[in-house]
């Protein structure tokens, strides 16, 4: 196994990591950087629980080689809040009752952020379509969609992105 040193930017911080080319972004985050907020529920890119943003693009960390994103800006769930101030999406998920077991929550929020960054005023159907690649087994999705709609409204009113 050929190891190399690579540099990563995650949540605004720089990291120097020794890894092999086979290391997935999911493994980099969870095992190397102790950022376990990004989950791994299937490993085949079907569930969306490993969604992070790479240069703002929603990306499945389990299906991405870490080495391919070196130098890019990676944003994970841990990077959303500013200190104790939650991102409007995080707050909306709490307020709307959109969290049950919470395992899908990180992926849902990151995907929703990508959606709202592109389309700040989505319809309910657009939110549903936007979350089509994120599976949840607990909630039936109803309150998750409620939360994204509520976050869009709050952000539209000037709540800090």
């Amino acid at each position, binding site marked *: 196994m050929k190891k190399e040193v690579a540099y990563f930017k995650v949540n605004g911080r720089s990291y120097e990591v020794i890894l092999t080319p086979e290391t997935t972004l999911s493994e980099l985050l969870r095992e190397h950087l102790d950022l376990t907020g990004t989950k791994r529920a299937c490993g085949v890119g079907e569930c969306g629980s490993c969604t992070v943003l790479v240069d703002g693009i929603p990306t499945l960390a389990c299906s991405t080689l870490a080495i391919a994103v070196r130098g890019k800006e990676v944003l994970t*769930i841990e990077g959303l809040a500013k200190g104790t101030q*939650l991102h409007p999406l995080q707050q909306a998920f709490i307020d709307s009752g959109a969290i049950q*077991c919470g*395992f899908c929550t990180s992926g849902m*929020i990151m995907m929703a952020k990508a959606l709202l960054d592109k389309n700040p005023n989505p319809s309910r159907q657009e939110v549903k*379509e936007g979350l089509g690649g994120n599976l*949840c*087994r*607990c*909630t039936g999705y109803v309150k998750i969609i409620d939360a994204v709609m509520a976050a869009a409204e709050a952000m539209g009113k000037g709540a800090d992105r």
Partner: protein
Amino acid sequence: MIDELSVIGKRVSRWGAYDRVTGAAKYTVDIKLPRMLVGKVLTSPYPHARIIKIDKSKAEKLPGVEAVITFEDIPKKLFTPNRHDLILYHPENERKDMYVISEKARFVGDRVAAVAAVDAATAQKALELIEVKYEVLPAVLDPIEAMKPGAPRIHDFAPNNISLHLNFPGSRGDVEKGFGEADCVIEETFRTSKQHISQLEPCACAASFGPDGRLTIWSPGQSAFLQRRKVAELFDMPEGMIKWITPHVGGSFGKSGALSVEPICVALTKKTGKPVKIEYSREEDFRGTETRQTYVATGKIGVKKDGTITALQEKLIVDGGAYFSRNSTTSMASMGGFTGLYRCPNVAAEADCVYTNILTTGGIRGYGNSEGTCVLEQLVDKAAKEIGMDPIQLRLRNIKKAGDPDNKGLPMETCTLEELIKVGAEKIGWAEKRARKKQNGTKKYGIGMAIMMDVSGAHPSCIQHRNAYIKFNEDGSANLVVTAYDMGQNLPGACAQIAAEVLGIRYEDIHILNGDTDSTMFDTGIGASAGLYQVGQAVMKAAQEARRQLLERAGKRLRLAPEELEVRDRRIYVKSDPQRGISVAEVTRQATYNLEGEHLNIFGKGSFSPTQSPPPFATVFAEVEVDTETGEVRVQKILYVNDSGRVINPATVEGQIEGGIAQSVGYCLTEDYVINRETGVLESDNFTTYKIPSALDVPETEVILYEEPVPSGPFGAKGVGHGTTIAVNPAIANAIYDAVGVFITDMPATPEKIFEALRRR
């Protein structure tokens, strides 16, 4: 007494929300311990095989491998992974048929060996280096085939592979006579689907021995104390030497009521002397953790022309899988659900639990009542059609009322089935929609409904024992220490609401300590919607005792009797003179640091065992559209009318229902656990092949929360989560029946099956 509730009934944020939205919440899969080894399990590629010899030498020599264990290395004790044998009043129907690592392979995925190594890649390589010599045996994958004489015997003690024959003890009357009195008798055989509940967090466990020999286990198991006892007995340890920690749990739905990898993980940590974590891949989770209870169910109903049900009979063949686990209790619940939903003088049921060389069918949300009710509710609709009666009218004719026995034989404090039917029928526009013209091009519309009653805990069949304690902090907040297992249904949050309401402080003033057997008190574990009704009452008692001490102490300060005082919103005040009072914080601080007299850390303990299990009720209406050219079913809408007694947190209750609906839509229409009939290999082993509903697959949902507080419940609350997968399936099946006259007897009701049924006509 307080006129208006301040916390109960409010949509407060759930317990653990902050940790979960920030990624801080640690689940078992996230656990990291210093020097931790990675454990992996080698499983059988054959559905049935003797293990002749295992050569682990090459694996052991691989650098980085610290242990390779087989049947030789584990305690030679048969056990059942299910914890009911520890608490059932009649445990004789349980079967201890499993070793920590199997001595014989009984399904593809059965545990044959395990390794612990420095990292996942090394562990995987080590598995590949273990050489197992199998003697492949003929396998049997179908329960009916398994019962036939000459079928391969899976467990030595079970001839014809029948592990248990159950005659339902609630059978009563004379069913033959009842069928004789009927004008219409319908009998159908159903095959229920082997759904895999697919909780998002893959199965995992971590274990570590401390220098003092105490073992710590991290596991998503639903019954920490009971599961701890099982591990203790397996490894000859006293329970007190094991600390069982429950991290955040990424879903369970009943599955983690059974032990899975915990014993192997402990065996590895024992062998290596180092912490070990096993984390299943999604494929391993599909292959190796229990599925939903699965039946070949023959149901028979007799009705008179006027709609009276004269007899009900059910014969179950339980496709039990390779190990018994929860076969008996789920079968009992299924038969109870079938025979106990309606008034009927003549009911009988029996079950044969059968071993097959497939993955064990366990105890998943609904726990047999889901299957029994589905069979019954579909038969009711068919009978209604035969006698030309509206299906709602037939149900109302036989509906149970308060005082009638529930499906466990206990008299019901309340029963709102009739009200729920009427509320739902009006809301959905039943009469008009049943009568409407069905066809639109190639698509036909249908509407169907079903009802259910479930349980609030497994009383009276087993010990249910709950404890909680509360200690005030100096600042007037309180720590609630309770085993309140949270698989997403927010039991800790509901307990905090109850505590806050009784103590007269705010919801955010309650800090919960949960999931640590060293500090929480004994609890028999969660399942069958026991949590809120039972644990909630232990919490209530603890809070009442702490409140009593608080008011007594405040009374001393104010020189008044405690009966003259009230406490609300962090303030203790005089009932007759509300301006006069003292803050809770002042009382607690002064009690702790009392310069003048007796010190007191205000503390309350509560213990609870139920004498009842009030059923939650629901009626569900489903609207579907069936494409007659393709057989595709689109569920347009589900209306769910729910009575769980008083609603402690509407967001939680709605969330449970909405989630149950989504699971049921999958169970009914698309989720198919596909096992290759030749090789016994699971073909649907990830979400690519096993499709659970996404946001686009869930229909429009409407939930009506009908609150009928039940006298014995905490603030009148009953259970909810368990029952939400019971009535949706039959409602959808009945809607399909209404739309196109196809009677679903084989789930999932795929377009292929519906197309074929339409073509045959």
